């Protein structure tokens, strides 16, 4: 791995964020909207009799952690999409950069975007609803790590779909995350879902991470068994996503799909 190439790609992504105001929507506007929306819902339900569990803290912890997956996934997927939107893919493919170096560069700057996005949602939660995510303590470290792996894995799947299907697949950048949101039990226990969806939810690594986070919000110790299941699932998802994007890249080269991007 050539670090100069990785840093060059990260720098290129920084220029895009610096010069494209619309790219700030994902990292600033969504976090603000989500923190206001779920914080207000939490406050409202918290005032209802017998609805103690659905407090603002419960929902805000969920939405802050959800933004880890969201920002990790969207930053990498839109980073790649930027190359297709600006028809820069061919320019990159004829340089010595390897696929791993490219993804590492985009993911590296993605961490910066993730830090901005998660900071915004955390600060809004603190300023508007006096909720401090750091009260989760060191439990945040493994939870964030697993969610980061899930976010990047989904981004690789989206990249694979864009390689295979062209720019039309860009909707999946936000679409996959929108599907994960209700199925991961972020704001409610999985048994609140329709019965047919519960096995699907249980199979998602995110569900176990959010279940673990909810335990910590309730003041209980971090359930490491849930974290372990989440981490195992995230590693399986990562392996599958690498396999998928590698296959899609091979198909892209074999079928000459570069013609869609010039």
């Amino acid at each position, binding site marked *: 791995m050539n670090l100069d190439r990785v840093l060059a790609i990260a720098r290129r992504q920084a220029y895009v964020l610096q010069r494209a105001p619309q790219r700030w929507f994902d990292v600033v506007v969504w976090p603000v909207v989500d923190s206001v929306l779920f914080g207000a819902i939490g406050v409202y339900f918290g005032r209802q009799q017998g609805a103690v569990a659905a407090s603002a803290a419960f929902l805000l912890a969920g939405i802050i952690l959800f933004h880890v997956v969201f920002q990790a996934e969207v930053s990498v997927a839109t980073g790649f999409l930027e190359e297709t939107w600006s028809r820069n893919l061919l320019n990159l493919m*004829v340089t010595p950069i390897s696929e791993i170096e490219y993804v590492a560069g985009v993911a590296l700057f993605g961490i910066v975007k993730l830090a901005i996005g998660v900071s915004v949602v955390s600060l809004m939660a603190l300023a508007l609803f006096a909720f401090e995510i750091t009260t989760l303590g060191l439990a945040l470290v493994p939870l964030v790590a697993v969610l980061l792996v899930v976010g990047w894995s989904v981004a690789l799947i989206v990249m694979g779909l864009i390689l295979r299907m062209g720019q039309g697949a860009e909707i999946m950048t936000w679409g996959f995350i929108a599907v994960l949101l209700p199925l991961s039990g972020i704001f409610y226990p999985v048994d609140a879902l329709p019965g047919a969806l519960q096995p699907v939810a249980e199979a998602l690594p995110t569900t176990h991470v959010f279940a673990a986070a909810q335990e910590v919000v309730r003041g209980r110790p971090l359930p490491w068994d849930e974290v372990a299941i989440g981490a195992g699932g995230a590693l399986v998802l990562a392996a599958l996503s690498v396999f998928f994007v590698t296959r899609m890249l091979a198909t892209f080269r074999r079928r000459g799909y570069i013609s869609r991007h010039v």
Partner: protein
Amino acid sequence: MADESASAMRAPVLEARGLVKEYKRVRAVDGIDLRVDAGERVALLGPNGAGKTTTLMMLLGVITPDEGEVEVVGKHLPRERSAAMEQVGFAAGYLPLPERLRVSEFLVLFGRLYGIRHPQEVVEQGLARFGITDLARAMGNELSSGQRTLVGIIKATLHQPQLLVLDEPTASLDPDVARRVRTGLERLCAEEGTALLVTSHNMLEVERLCERVVFVSGGRVVADGTPEGVAAHFGRADLEGVFLHLADGDETPEVDTPEVATPEERGREAS
């Protein structure tokens, strides 16, 4: 010593053997062999749909051939693609510059991707070579098509590649800019010993720039030789005549000229 130098100049920087590519049962490339030696200036010509761009993309590792093999500066594709691309530059007249980068930022980015540790100085030299130093701070989307082409060629030559591949470099350029491109390329090839493989529909320009032309039609090489030799081979006054002859769907030469090699003959010469 002189023999060694001459031998190095004759060494191939690009060798493709038996390239075949089929798209949905249409054979876009049908057994192309191509060799470009160090310092050689070669044009790959043919009507639209002849298989030129698909061939170029296979030579660059962007498209995987169904059959055949490609070796660039002694590196096999796709296994050694990254190492091979360190010695190859590519630019195409149809490629835009990324909108959100200044010209100098775009060139520095690609300089780093090509492994140049301190690209700023090389970027300034490149801009000076093509007389566009004033564009360094312009945004990619502010450039005319001619300026974009020049910046694309500078990008492709920053790392002093052994092989420069240009797809339609002067398409839609006015004669003045086209001349600057040609002059810059001639100087580059002379000074650096860079080999050139270029596709173009401008036959006059090809006659001025290239010492060898390879005509492709129906996915196959139909002629390979000097511009004058190929024109004579088809009984035409110039390459434009050959082009129109092939565009009409006729691949049959009208005159038998021994100096124009068939692909098989070139293969035997090479070995």
